[in-house]
């Protein structure tokens, strides 16, 4: 009598359905308990922390582009806004807790996101993508040229303040990694709730047929601006984590158009409209090149020309991307889903 979807909806509105969160929870457990036992600063500092930050940014973009169908090339700009806003809030409000600083960073990015999301009310597809380029260029220009943002530092490269969480100093790679993991886990959980409820259906409705959504009484304009804000919040927090926990420096040049493209490629390769896809894509785009260059250095020996290793690695990565997309145009997420169905069938 009562339908499966409504049960799902009921779950997403009350207590989360334990079953649908079991897989992600087990993964989280591994990342929170098992992996920190490994004693390798390299693993946390150079691989896992940037992986988490890029995953979060990709998750934010996937809410906007994957679920709501609004293409954006301004992700790096929102990361930059988050990084600089977080820096300024922590700098100028003494005693502001780190998590509050991160939240303010996200909120600032969300406000900027709403402003630069306004063109989406009229533009679609490629035209919207081009208008988001304006965000990318404007934000980078403003952060470079208005010295107040970087606290009048002449070098243009500034360092984030020491990170504290409660009484804990986040001074080791593992601790910074755990900060990222905690923030990413909470925001991922909220995103899963968001997309499985009525809001998620409204987003997909706007994507699949804007007119169809409008005629049902979905407030299309409000829905679009809402998802621009949420997406920018996520990407802003990701930018703050990227510079505070990973790079340990903040500079506008790190958030150029290349970074925007990188995040777009993460969700295309990982899978559009998929939470899991953001993480799989980030693993592919961020972690794989690092592993490849390590493997290359080990295989070819220390005396080898590092430029050549770099080149070979890029060719290899490019070939892998083509191969994966040929095998599964819907992204790694769909590939994993298919493998799982096949495994369950046997």
């Amino acid at each position, binding site marked *: *009598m*009562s*339908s*499966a*979807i*409504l049960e799902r*909806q*009921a779950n997403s*509105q009350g207590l989360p359905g334990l079953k649908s969160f079991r897989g992600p929870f087990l993964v989280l457990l591994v990342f929170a308990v098992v992996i920190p036992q490994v004693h390798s600063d390299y693993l946390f500092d150079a691989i896992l922390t940037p992986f988490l930050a890029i995953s979060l940014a990709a998750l934010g973009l996937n809410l906007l582009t994957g679920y709501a169908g609004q293409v954006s090339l301004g992700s790096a700009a929102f990361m930059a806004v988050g990084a600089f806003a977080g820096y300024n809030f922590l700098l100028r409000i003494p005693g502001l807790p780190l998590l509050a600083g991160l939240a303010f960073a996200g909120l600032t990015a969300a406000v900027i996101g709403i402003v630069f999301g306004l063109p989406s009310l009229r533009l679609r597809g490629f035209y919207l993508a081009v208008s988001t380029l304006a965000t990318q260029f404007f934000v980078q220009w403003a952060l470079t040229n208005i010295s107040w943002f970087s606290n009048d530092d002449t070098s243009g490269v500034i360092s984030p303040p020491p990170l504290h969480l409660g009484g804990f100093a986040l001074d080791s790679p593992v601790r910074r990694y755990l900060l990222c993991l905690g923030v990413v886990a909470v925001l991922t959980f909220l995103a899963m709730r968001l997309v499985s409820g*009525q809001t998620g*259906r*409204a987003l*997909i*409705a706007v*994507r*699949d*047929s*804007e*007119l*169809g*959504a*409008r*005629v*049902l*009484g*979905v*407030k299309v304009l409000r829905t679009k601006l809402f998802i621009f804000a949420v997406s920018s919040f996520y990407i802003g927090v990701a930018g703050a984590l990227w510079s505070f926990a990973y790079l340990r420096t903040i500079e506008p040049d790190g958030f150029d158009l290349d970074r925007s493209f990188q995040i777009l490629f993460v969700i295309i390769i990982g899978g559009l*409209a998929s939470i899991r896809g953001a993480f799989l894509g980030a693993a592919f785009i961020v972690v794989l090149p690092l592993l490849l260059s390590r493997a290359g250095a080990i295989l070819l020996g220390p005396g080898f020309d590092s430029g050549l290793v770099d080149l070979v690695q890029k060719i290899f990565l490019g070939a892998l991307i083509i191969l994966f997309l040929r095998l599964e145009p819907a992204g790694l997420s769909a590939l994993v889903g298919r493998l799982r169905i096949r495994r369950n069938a046997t």
Partner: protein
Amino acid sequence: MTVAPALLTLEDVDVVYGAAITAVRGVRLHVGQGEIVTLLGANGAGKTSTLRAVSNLLHAKLGRMSRGRITFDGRSTAGLPTSRLVSSGLVQVLEGRHCFRALTIEENLITGAIGRRASKAETATDLELVYALFPRLRTKRAVLAGLTSGGEQQMAAIGRALMARPRLLILDEPSMGLAPIVVAEIFLALTALNRDQGLSILLAEQNATVALKAAHRGVVLENGRVTLTGIASELSARDDIRAAYLGLNKPPSSESSRSKSIEVVA
């Protein structure tokens, strides 16, 4: 005009696209409480433009209502966003169905409840009503809408609109591209809704035979103007209507019967 108070009235409505093309000129029509009215006309006659004007959907296609007045339930609809019209009970099923292909049939139906912010219990009740009306949707409820047949998508589109609990249901060519047996099923459901629940319906159609059989009254549009209005049964008995829209029985004159036979072949 009749005893039933008009739920929807259009007075002298003009619709213009891009300040250049006038698609609808001076259209007057009304839909009474509990009435089924059908809007007949060929392609380009202005049916869709008229219906989009009613739901305030013209600006999405760079069109606007340049003249006239539309009232729903006694209140002017000018400047009201579509979402407000939906929550006041004026719900449209678009031409071409516009199902959300990445959502299942059931999820599509549930999106229909967004506009009126229905509670979970209401949504569940309405879902059962839709499934009772279109049993086929129940069997397909977990299937992605993009993978279902055209008939099922049309049923889902109508069901989705019903989830908004309309008082006036507007349908733009529900028979488009569907097999006659599916069209019959859909019209049976629409007349049942009208008979049993008193749902008022405004229906644009090219399939005049089916539409006039279901409707109480008909309005004929040609080149954006109303050329004829009347009781459905009288309209379907008129020779000119039969010739123009039903493609049947032209009066016996040798010349026109020849043109008739050509029409049938075409």
